[in-house]
């Protein structure tokens, strides 16, 4: 069982279908103990399905998943006793106060009396909720509600914390608070956290990131490793209608020998000396190029490089007329 000592989560070849659609298509990954791991992917990419299986709410068609060495299917009770789950939609009762919610939440794990009260005191202190205990939950801001959710999970002293899109509906300040709380849990208490997210900025804060698309794990590594693998900076070229992106990409590749790809109507090139190359291209194709952008690679570029498509909801058909998303730097 040495694997369970070093790894908090071990997922092996997990498959899950809904009718015709394969939500998970043979995903394998490992999350080390004490790690802050992010599952990044577009909505509909399969990460929520994986989340529900890990949370013991849904059964896989095949493959295995273990949390703290216990199988999520055959030893669900063992898993549940060690697992804190923060759902995307609140699992607090809006009509109750934070304190009442925490008491009910603790009772679900058999906690009562002074033990429960002392844990509530500690969890609410850790998340700065001490002076809001008697507030009715539905009157609180989204950020406070999310912190109360996490406090509820902490009552059971979880080994592993699963969070489904934890920053949904939070303002930027509340997001920072949330991440500070997760990092504190990791550094002070060794809690392993696995977050699902569709936000690049959020994933970039994790120790390691797994990128999920169409039910497959398309990339896995630290944010730096993943972006470093891009090999230089990224040039994106807007193309005039007369030329067309495919035509320009062919022209560029034949003239320079550098591979150029087309993503959602733009020509995309990764290159170590991007600035020099950009200047050269601008000189050689002044009519064809309508816009030019150079950027450090982000996790979005990693996603594009691995899947050949933009990072958007996978249920939605890509809209060719829509303006291509601007990158932030």
């Amino acid at each position: 069982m040495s694997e369970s000592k070093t790894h908090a989560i071990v997922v092996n070849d997990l498959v899950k279908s809904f009718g015709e659609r394969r939500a998970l298509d043979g995903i394998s990954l490992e999350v080390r103990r004490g790690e802050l791991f992010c599952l990044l992917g577009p909505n509909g990419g399969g990460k929520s399905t994986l989340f529900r299986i890990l949370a013991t709410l849904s059964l896989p068609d095949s493959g295995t998943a273990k949390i703290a060495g216990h199988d999520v299917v055959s030893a669900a009770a063992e898993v549940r006793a060690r697992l804190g789950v923060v759902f995307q939609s609140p699992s607090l009762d809006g009509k109750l106060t934070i304190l009442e919610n925490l008491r009910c939440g603790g009772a679900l794990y058999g906690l009562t009396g002074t033990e429960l009260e002392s844990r509530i005191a500690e969890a609410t202190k850790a998340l700065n909720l001490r002076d809001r205990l008697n507030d009715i939950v539905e009157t609180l801001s989204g950020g406070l509600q999310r912190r109360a959710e996490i406090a509820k999970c902490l009552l059971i002293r979880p080994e592993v914390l699963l969070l489904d899109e934890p920053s949904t509906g939070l303002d930027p300040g509340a997001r920072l608070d949330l991440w500070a709380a997760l990092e504190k849990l990791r550094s002070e208490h060794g809690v392993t956290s696995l977050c699902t997210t569709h936000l690049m900025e959020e994933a970039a804060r994790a120790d390691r990131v797994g990128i999920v698309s169409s039910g497959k794990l398309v990339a896995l590594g630290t944010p730096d490793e993943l972006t470093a693998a891009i090999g230089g900076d990224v040039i994106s070229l807007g193309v005039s209608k007369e030329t067309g992106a495919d035509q320009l990409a062919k022209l560029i590749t034949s003239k320079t020998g550098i591979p150029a790809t087309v993503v959602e109507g733009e020509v995309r090139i990764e290159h170590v000396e991007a600035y020099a190359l950009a200047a050269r291209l601008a000189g050689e194709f002044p009519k064809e190029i309508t816009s030019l952008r150079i950027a450090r690679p982000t996790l979005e570029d990693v996603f594009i490089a691995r899947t050949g498509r933009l990072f958007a909801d996978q249920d939605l058909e890509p809209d060719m007329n829509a303006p291509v998303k601007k990158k932030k730097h």
Partner: protein
Amino acid sequence: MRLLRKRSTELPKQFLMKPTHLLWTPALAFWWRDVIRFLRQRNRIIGALATPLVFWMLVGSGFGPSFRNPGALTSAAATGSYLAYFFPGTLVLIMLFTAIFSTISVIEDRREGFLQGALVAPLSPAAIPLGKFLGGTTLAVLQAALFCVLAPLAGLPIGWHQAALLLPALVFVGFAMTGMGFLVAWPMDSTQGFHAIMNIFLMPLWMMSGALFPMPAGTGWLYWAGALNPVSYGVTAIRSSFAATSGTALPAGYLTGLVVTALFAAVMFVISVNLVAKRSKRN
């Protein structure tokens, strides 16, 4: 932070011993939560109590003059008035409404609410049904008991003798009603679906129970609809409670009504536990 700091991989002892057997503590938490929620939502109290009250007065007064009870009631309760006849049926309706209101929340609560957290806790599969059944029963019995204050207005006697028989009858009927509501709500994914089932299934069960009109004797379909309908026995148990006297003999039909209702409630509970134990494949 002392306790949290100790965390490492150690778990509290109770988890390591019996992680799957958490039953009463979580069930009582559910029960307590249902009661608190109810008290904080005044419109629910009105909905569950006022609707049947209005129904009782309007239907009762309207049908009153043309109503002739073929003789199901005897002794003190046999005043012949339809308001009196309809009173036990209204009690059952109050309990049905309360049960529906307290179980319909299960539908949304499972997907986005407090129940989500319960589904990932190491609970006995009986914990959630037990808590919900107890919660629904408590609310139903409280409201029915409140309505019983009006019994003298209907010409029905209400004293210690009647109350002693009524209480167990109300408890079992409340448990059975909550059970029906829970069974309908648990597999549902929308509250609209619940309303449909309520209208085509739950309300007819109530109507065919002798609550609204006396079920005929004989062998016709209406007789069988009543005889095979578990709700009939609850109505009978409640109706006959009002015929209690100071003697030791139980009113006719009381014991059968009570026993059948209790059995029905038990069956509802067992099915519910099995339903909750199944981890859904479709999720």
